[in-house]
C-alpha cells in the first residue's frame, strides 16, 4: 500500500504514479493491461469521474514499464452514451485518439461466468471478454461516498464491468441482488490485480453523482484492492470495518485491518480528511 500526496492534476502525476508502480514491481512487461476507470456520467468539472489526467498518466506509466498494450475501459451505469461522457471529461485531449485505446464494456462481447462465492442470489453473470481476456486488470477509482453502499472505491468501481448491453442502464439486477453482495461476487471473479484511487479531489455527501467536491490531495496505490479501499476509507475519516461490503471483503478478498496492511508513503494522519456522509451512513464516521 502506498499513499502519496498529490495536490492537483497538473503537477508530477506521471512521476508519482511511476514511482509507486515501480515500488510494487508490477508484472506488466509484454502484457495487456486494462485500466478500469470510473466514468459515471457527464462531468465537465471532473468531480464524479476518475480524472482523465490520472487515467492518462497511469496509461503512460504502464507503457513505460513495458506493457504491450494498455486499454482504458468502463461501462457507465446510468447513461449509455459513453461518447458523450468521454467528451464531457475531455478524455480525448489527455489520451489522444480513443478508437483503439478505449473499450466500452457495456457493448463488449460477453462470456457466461458462474459466481462461486454466491454472496448474492445471482448464480452467474455475463461479463465482457475484454475484462476476462487481459493479463493485468487495474481498478482506477475515485475517492467518493456512495448513497447506497457508503463508499465507492476500487471494489465498487468493478460494478462498471457488468455490461449494460446485457443488463441495462442502470444494471438494476445488481441492485435487486443486493449491492453489497454483488460487489463481492463481481470482485471474486474479476479481482483487480492492482488498484489506484484518485483522491486528489474526491466527493462527499450524496455521492456518487450528486455529492460535493472534496479535495483530499492523495493518490492511493496497492495490489490488494481491499487494503486500498480500507485505506481510502481511513483517508476519508470513515471506518472501513463498518462498510458492509468491505467488512465481508476483508474475510474473502483481501486485508482490511491496519495491522495486516503494510503501508508506505504518507502517514495516514497527515492526509486524513473528514468526508461528510448521508445520515444513513453516520455510523461510518470515525
Amino acid at each position, binding site marked *: 500500500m502506498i499513499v502519496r500526496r498529490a495536490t492537483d492534476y497538473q503537477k508530477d502525476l506521471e512521476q508519482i504514479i511511476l514511482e509507486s508502480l515501480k515500488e510494487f514491481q508490477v508484472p506488466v512487461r509484454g502484457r495487456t493491461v486494462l485500466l478500469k476507470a470510473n466514468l459515471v456520467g*457527464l462531468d465537465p468539472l471532473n468531480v464524479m469521474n476518475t480524472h482523465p489526467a490520472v487515467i492518462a498518466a497511469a496509461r503512460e506509466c504502464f507503457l513505460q514499464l513495458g506493457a504491450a498494450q494498455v486499454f482504458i475501459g468502463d461501462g457507465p451505469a*446510468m*447513461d*449509455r*452514451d*459513453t*461518447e*458523450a461522457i*468521454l*467528451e*464531457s471529461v475531455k*478524455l*480525448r485531449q489527455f489520451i489522444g485518439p*480513443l*478508437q*483503439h485505446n*478505449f473499450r*466500452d464494456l457495456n*457493448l*463488449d*462481447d*460477453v462470456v*457466461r461466468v458462474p459466481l462461486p462465492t454466491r454472496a448474492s442470489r445471482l448464480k452467474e453473470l*455475463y461479463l465482457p471478454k475484454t475484462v476476462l481476456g487481459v493479463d493485468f486488470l487495474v481498478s482506477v477509482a475515485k475517492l467518493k461516498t456512495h*448513497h447506497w453502499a457508503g463508499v465507492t472505491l476500487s471494489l465498487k468501481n468493478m460494478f462498471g464491468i457488468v455490461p449494460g*448491453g*446485457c*443488463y*441495462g*442502464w*442502470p*444494471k*438494476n*439486477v445488481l*441492485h*435487486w441482488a443486493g449491492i453489497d453482495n454483488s460487489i463481492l461476487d463481481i470482485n471474486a471473479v474479476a479481482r483487480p490485480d492492482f488498484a489506484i484511487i484518485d483522491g486528489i479531489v474526491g466527493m462527499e455527501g*450524496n455521492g456518487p*453523482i*450528486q455529492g460535493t467536491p472534496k479535495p483530499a490531495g492523495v493518490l492511493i496505490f496497492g495490489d490488494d484492492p481491499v487494503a486500498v479501499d480500507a485505506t481510502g476509507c481511513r483517508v476519508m475519516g470513515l471506518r472501513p470495518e463498518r462498510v458492509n461490503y468491505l467488512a465481508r471483503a476483508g474475510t474473502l478478498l483481501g486485508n482490511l485491518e491496519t495491522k495486516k496492511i503494510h503501508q508506505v508513503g504518507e502517514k495516514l494522519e497527515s492526509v486524513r480528511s473528514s468526508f461528510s456522509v*448521508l*445520515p*444513513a451512513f453516520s455510523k461510518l464516521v470515525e
Partner: protein
Amino acid sequence: MVEPQGISAEYSFVRDLCVPFLLGAQNRDGGWGFETNSDSRVEPSCWAMRALWNCPIPVSSEALKSGVDYLLQAQLKDGSWPANAGGAGSWVTSLACSILASEKEYQREVQAAVEWLCDDYPRDSTLWRRMLQKLRSGEPVDNHDGSFRGWGWTPHTSSWVEPTAFAIQALRDCPSAWRPAESAARLDLATGLLYDRMCPGGGWNCGNPMVYGVAGEPLVLPTGWALLALHDCPDGERKTKSLNWLLNHFAKISSVASLAVARITLESYGRELPRSHRTLHEMFDARALSITTEVVAWTCLALSPKRHWFPKTEIAN
C-alpha cells in the same frame, strides 16, 4: 447542403457510409453485433434492420430477410428475446416485437412477445413494496408515485424510462387484435410512469428525477425515447417542457448517438432543428469512439427523411 451533382451531402453519407457499414457488419447468422465482427445480439440487429428498412437507398431484401431469420431463431420459448445469446428475456423483446409487428406472418411470434411483456410486472411497485415504503422512516430516497408501472431492463426488477418507452412503442406497433386485453391498462400505467419520472425542468434521465431531494439532470437519449413513445399521447404541457429542454440542449450535444436521436425526436414533432456546432455527419467523422452498429443505425435513421420511426403497421385487423 447540395453537392454539384444535386445529391445532398446527407444522402451521400447514408449511401456511402451508413448503408455499406450496416450491410458489411451483418454476421453470417443474419444478426448484427455492436461492433463489426462481434457476436450477433438482438438490440443492434433491430436497430440495423430499422435503419435499412427506412433508408432512401435500395437495400437487398436478402439482408433484411436473414436479419428477420436471426430474430426468429433468437426468440425464447416464453416469447421473449434475450439481450445476449444464452441470456433470459429482457427489454430487447420490445425492439424485436416492433420489427416483426409489421408482417402478418409473424403474428404468432409477436403475440407471444406481447403476452410476455404484459405478464412482466416490475417488482418495485407491488402493493407489498409500496406498503413497506410508506412504513419506512426518514427522508425518502425518491419521489416516485409507486402506483404507476412501466417495464424494467430485466424482468422482476424496477421500472425505468427507456425500457418503458420501448415497450409502449412495441405495444402501439402491434395490431390491436394481437394484443392481450390487459395491454390497454399497461399502456396507461406506463404512460403515467413516464410523466411521473420526468425531470422537474423537463426531459428524462434513466428514471431518477429526484434523489434525496436533489433534482436529477436529464439526458438526451432517454428524453428522445420517452418523447417518441409519448408522441400520440395527450398532455401537451409536460411534453412541450421536455421538447423545449431538448431544443435548448441541442447545440451542446457532443456525441453522435445523442445528436441522431435528438434530431429524430425533434423532427417527429415537426420542430425545426436548432443550429448545432457541427452537423451530424461532421460529428460522425470526428467521433471519439470506434463505430458501433446502433450509432450508425441511429445516424442513418436521422438522415433518412422519409423514415417511419417505427415501421407502420399495414395489416388489416
